[in-house]
Every structure is written in C-alpha cells, then in structure tokens.
C-alpha cells in the first residue's frame, strides 16, 4: 500500500516528538541526580563508550595483529569523541592527528617488519592460564579503582565543561609552561636519534666485526 507524503510526515513527526518529550520528561525526573546536560550528551557518551569497548576488546582479543590495530584505531576515534564531549575540540583533532596518523602507522610498520600478519606468533590463542591472568588483570583495576571513583563521586563541585579558545593553549605553552614545552621537544629529538641509532646499528663496517666474534 502506498502512502502519501502528506500522510506519512505528520506521523513521523508525532512519533519523534513523543520520543523527544518522553526523554525530556525522563531527564526531568532524574534532575536531582544528574547535572543539567541534555539527553543527547548522555546518548553520545553511551555511543562513545560502546565504541571504546568494542575497539578495546578487538585490539586485545584479535589474533590477527592488523585487525587488532584497526580496533586500536576504533578506540582512538571513541576517545576523540569523548574529547569533543568535554568541549576540547583541539585535543580531539590532535588525537586523530597524532594517534591515528602517526602512532598507528608506526605500529603498522612494526607489524609488517616483523611479519606478524595472520599466521604470525599471535595466531593461536594463549593458554587457559594466561587467559585467566588476563581476566585477573582486567578485573583488578576495575575492582580496586572503580569503587574508589564511585565513593568519591560528588565530593567536589562539578561543572559543565566550557570550551576555551585554542589561543589560550598557545599562550600557556609560551608563558607558564614553557619548560615542559622545551623538554618535550628534547625528548622527541632524543627518541628520534635513539631510534635511528638502534635501527641502523647493524649495518655498516662494524657489522662484520660484531659477527666475527
């Protein structure tokens, strides 16, 4: 049966309107417990947590390391969404740029250079004992730190995050926090030089000397 647009559109409007008003009234009834955020924010938070969970378990359980890296990318995207929810879009952008753009490419190089693709050293499942230890390692932080977080909830006043202009970050980097800024550039330089030294050490004239021992 074919229905006209003029008939369908008001029906969809009524359904969407009733859902929205229902969620709004649900939020109004939860008002004493939750701060004054729109239900859209909570919905986005739930979606991001689901993305993080899916990506996290994918990246520790997949036997193919390339798939594990794709799970890591999924987790990075979820965390970037969390940064957007926390009203810091610059950090979300940096998360995508640094982690997805640089760190994941490095990990991909590591996977490919060690030929760990689908039939590599991670191809079969670990023993039951190792899985048990893994489960213990999963539950220990949740059981120790989780109750602490919930116990201390609401002890300090919490405000809704407000976006601050990116220029303030630059001013902070060049005025108050100039020492960490310089230190991190030194650390990056030293790490790069060390990586180049380690990677190229086996080549060149000293190689034959080392292997003749």
């Amino acid at each position, binding site marked *: 049966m074919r229905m006209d647009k003029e008939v369908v559109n008001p029906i969809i409007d009524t359904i969407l309107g009733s859902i929205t008003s229902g969620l709004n009234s649900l939020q109004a009834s939860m008002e004493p417990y939750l701060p004054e955020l729109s239900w859209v924010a909570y919905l986005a938070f739930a979606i991001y947590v689901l993305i993080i969970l899916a990506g996290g378990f994918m990246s520790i359980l997949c036997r193919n390391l390339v798939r594990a890296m794709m799970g890591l990318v999924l987790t990075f995207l979820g965390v970037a969404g969390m940064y957007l929810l926390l009203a810091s879009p*610059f950090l979300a952008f940096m998360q995508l740029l640094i982690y997805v753009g640089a760190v994941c490419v490095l990990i991909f190089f590591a996977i490919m250079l060690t030929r760990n693709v689908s039939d590599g050293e991670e191809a079969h499942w670990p023993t039951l004992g190792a899985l048990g230890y893994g489960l213990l390692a999963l539950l220990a932080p949740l059981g120790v730190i989780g109750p602490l977080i919930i116990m201390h909830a609401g002890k300090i006043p919490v405000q809704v995050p407000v976006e601050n202009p990116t220029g303030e970050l630059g001013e902070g980097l060049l005025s108050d926090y100039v020492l960490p800024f310089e230190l991190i550039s030194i650390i990056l330089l030293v790490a790069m030089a060390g990586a180049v030294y*380690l990677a190229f050490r086996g080549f060149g004239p000293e190689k034959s000397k080392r292997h003749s021992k």
Partner: protein
Amino acid sequence: MTTLTFFLLASLLLLAIGLAGLITRRTLVGMLISVELMLNGAGLSIVAAYKSTAASDVLGQLATLFVMGLAAAEATLVLAMILVVHRRFGKVTTKEISLLR
C-alpha cells in the same frame, strides 16, 4: 554520580583493557598496542578531571598534549627496539628474548 564519574569510569575501562592485553599478548607488537590503550585512558582521565572541575582548563589540555607527545616518542623507540630484537632473535615473542647478552 556526576558526569566526571562517568568519564573517569570510561578511562578506567581503558586502563583495565590495556592491562589485560599487556598480560595476555605474547609479542612485543601486541604489548605496544595495549600500552597505547592505557596511555589513552590516562589522557582521557586528565582532561575529564580538569575540564569538569574548577581547575585550570589550559593545564589539563596541555598535560594531555604532553602525554600524546610522550606516547609518540615511546612508539618510535619501541619500533626501533622491535626491529633490533627481530634482527637478533628472529622472533619478537617475549618467551624467546630471555637472553641478556
């Protein structure tokens, strides 16, 4: 329960998943992936704590930027170490590389 609690619990999840991966993975590459998960959780908890309390927003965001920079440096170094270990032992599983000399 405040919004800060939700964000802190999400970053705790990242920490727990990363720790479990660090225990169960056999190769250095898999362990590197797990460490990146845990560092992400640390950054998320720092930003959440600074943004949703009265503390300075700029300090929190800059701290997380530093965590990201350290993670990039760490990934670079670990890639070089994995290359050296692979050249020396032919494998990157943690069981094989127990020889110190």
